[in-house]
C-alpha cells in the first residue's frame, strides 16, 4: 500500500535509554554455547553493550521520564498536547491503554486523543502514519508520538538468539503540521500468515500465563526459554527482511521519483549489524549512509531503534540542518514499512538516561 502525506513534520525528538548497561562478554556464561562461538557471533552481529531496565520498570516509566524532561526544559507544554499515540508491545497492562496511564500520571488535559498501537519493529513508521492522519483534524495541532518497549523483561537470559540483542528504550517525537508542501512518500505491507515468526506465546487471553508457561524448555539450538518469553524464528525473520525490504525501498524511491544518491541517510530498524550490512549490500547503498551502530551501543529496542539511530548519529546535524532520509521498519506482524521524508531542523534532538526511579 502506497501512502502520501503533505505538510507534516517531526519537530522534535527525544530518546530515553536505561542507564543500566550490560556487556555481552559478561553474559556469555548464561548461554549454552562455547565462549569461542559466542565471541565469533559477537563480532559478526555487533553485540557489545545493551541498555536494559533494571527491575520492574514499565513502558510508562521510560515515557514519563522523557516527557517530564521536556516539560522541565520548556521544550513541550502539557496543554499543547492534543494527541498522545503510544506504540508498544510491552504495555503496562492489558487494559487500560498505556497512553491513558501516561496521560493520567502526567496530568495532561482531558480534551485530547489518547491511543495505543500494538506494533514492534515497524512501530515508528506506523506511529508516524497515525500521527500524520490525526493532524487532518483542525483540533489537533500537536501529536506526541511515543515509541517504547521494555521487552527485555520477557526475554530469557539463556536465549542466545534473542537476549544479546535486546534493548529497552523510549522515544518521544513531536509531530506537527508544516509549511513544507513537498510530499512525504510512504509504503506499508503486512502479512499476518507469518505472524508466529516473532511472538510471545503466553500471557494473553489465548494462552494465559501459568506456572507451566514459565518453565524453561530447550530448543534444537540449545537455547532455553519459556512460553512466557519472546521467541523468534531467526532464519525466517532474516529471510523475510532480505527478501521483502529491498524491493519495497526500490518501489518507494521509484514512486517518489528519487534516486538512492539523492537520499542522505537510510535509517532502518536495527536488529543486528549483519542484517543491516546485508541490506546495504543488496540495495547497493554505502554503509556510511546506513548506520548500523545501534545494537552495539544500546541493543535492539524494537520500534525505537530508528529514533535511537537518529539521536545517536545525527543529533547535531539535525539541530540546524535538514537531511533527506529513507526510514524503514520491519518485524512483528509481519509488517514492513518505509517512508521518504525530510528530517530537521529540529527544535530538540537529544538522548537521555533513565534513572532508577519510577513513576
Amino acid at each position, binding site marked *: 500500500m502506497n501512502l502520501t502525506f503533505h505538510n507534516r513534520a517531526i519537530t522534535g525528538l527525544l530518546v530515553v535509554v536505561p542507564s543500566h548497561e550490560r556487556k555481552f562478554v559478561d553474559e556469555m556464561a548464561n548461554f549454552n554455547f562455547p565462549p569461542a*562461538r559466542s565471541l*565469533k*557471533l559477537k563480532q*559478526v552481529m555487533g553485540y557489545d553493550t545493551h541498555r536494559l531496565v533494571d527491575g520492574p520498570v514499565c513502558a510508562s516509566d521510560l515515557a514519563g521520564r522523557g516527557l517530564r524532561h521536556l516539560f522541565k526544559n520548556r521544550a513541550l507544554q502539557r496543554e499543547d498536547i492534543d494527541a498522545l499515540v503510544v506504540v508498544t508491545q510491552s504495555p503496562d497492562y492489558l487494559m487500560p491503554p498505556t497512553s491513558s496511564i501516561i496521560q493520567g500520571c502526567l496530568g495532561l488535559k482531558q480534551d485530547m486523543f489518547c491511543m495505543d498501537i500494538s506494533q514492534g519493529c515497524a512501530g515508528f513508521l506506523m506511529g508516524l502514519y497515525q500521527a500524520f492522519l490525526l493532524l487532518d483534524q483542525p483540533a489537533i495541532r500537536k501529536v506526541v508520538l511515543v515509541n517504547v518497549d521494555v521487552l527485555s523483561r520477557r526475554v530469557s537470559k539463556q536465549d542466545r*538468539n534473542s537476549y544479546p540483542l535486546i534493548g529497552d528504550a523510549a522515544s518521544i517525537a513531536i509531530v506537527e503540521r508544516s509549511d513544507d508542501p513537498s510530499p512525504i512518500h510512504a509504503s506499508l505491507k503486512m502479512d499476518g500468515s507469518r505472524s508466529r515468526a516473532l511472538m510471545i506465546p503466553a500471557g494473553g487471553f489465548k494462552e494465559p500465563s501459568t506456572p507451566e508457561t514459565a518453565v524453561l524448555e530447550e530448543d534444537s539450538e*540449545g537455547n532455553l526459554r519459556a512460553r512466557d518469553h519472546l521467541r523468534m524464528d531467526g532464519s525466517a525473520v532474516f*529471510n523475510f*527482511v532480505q*527478501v521483502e525490504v529491498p524491493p519495497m525501498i526500490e518501489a518507494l524511491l521509484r514512486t517518489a521519483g528519487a534516486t538512492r544518491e539523492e537520499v542522505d541517510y537510510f535509517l532502518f530498524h536495527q536488529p543486528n549489524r549483519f542484517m543491516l550490512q546485508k541490506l546495504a549490500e*543488496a540495495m547497493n547503498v554505502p554503509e556510511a549512509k546506513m548506520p548500523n551502530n545501534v545494537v552495539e551501543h544500546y541493543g535492539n529496542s524494537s520500534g525505537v531503534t530508528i529514533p535511537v539511530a537518529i539521536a545517536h548519529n545525527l543529533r547535531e546535524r539535525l539541530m540546524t540542518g535538514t537531511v533527506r532520509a529513507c526510514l524503514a521498519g520491519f518485524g512483528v506482524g509481519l509488517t514492513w514499512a518505509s517512508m521518504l521524508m525530510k528530517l530537521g531542523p529540529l527544535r530538540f534532538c537529544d538522548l537521555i538516561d533513565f534513572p532508577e526511579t519510577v513513576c
Partner: protein
Amino acid sequence: MNGIECALQSIRPEFDFTTSTDFIGDGMLDSYDMVMLVAELDKSFGIRLAGRDIVPENFRSISTIEQLVGRYEKAA
C-alpha cells in the same frame, strides 16, 4: 581441505563436515552458525552472498555450499 571445509571448520571445529550431507538435520549448523559461515565465506572468497540466499537449503552440505559460492564466483 578446500576453502569451504576450512570455513566450516572455523565455525564448528568439533565436526567432520565431510561425513554429512545434512548439516542442519544432523545438528552441525544452526541458524546463527549459517550467519557466521556467510561472513567467513564472504571474506575467504571475496564475494558478497546476498541475504536472500541465506536459507538452510543452501547450507545443507559441502556440495550445496559449493554450488552457492560457485554461482557468485561465476557472476563476478
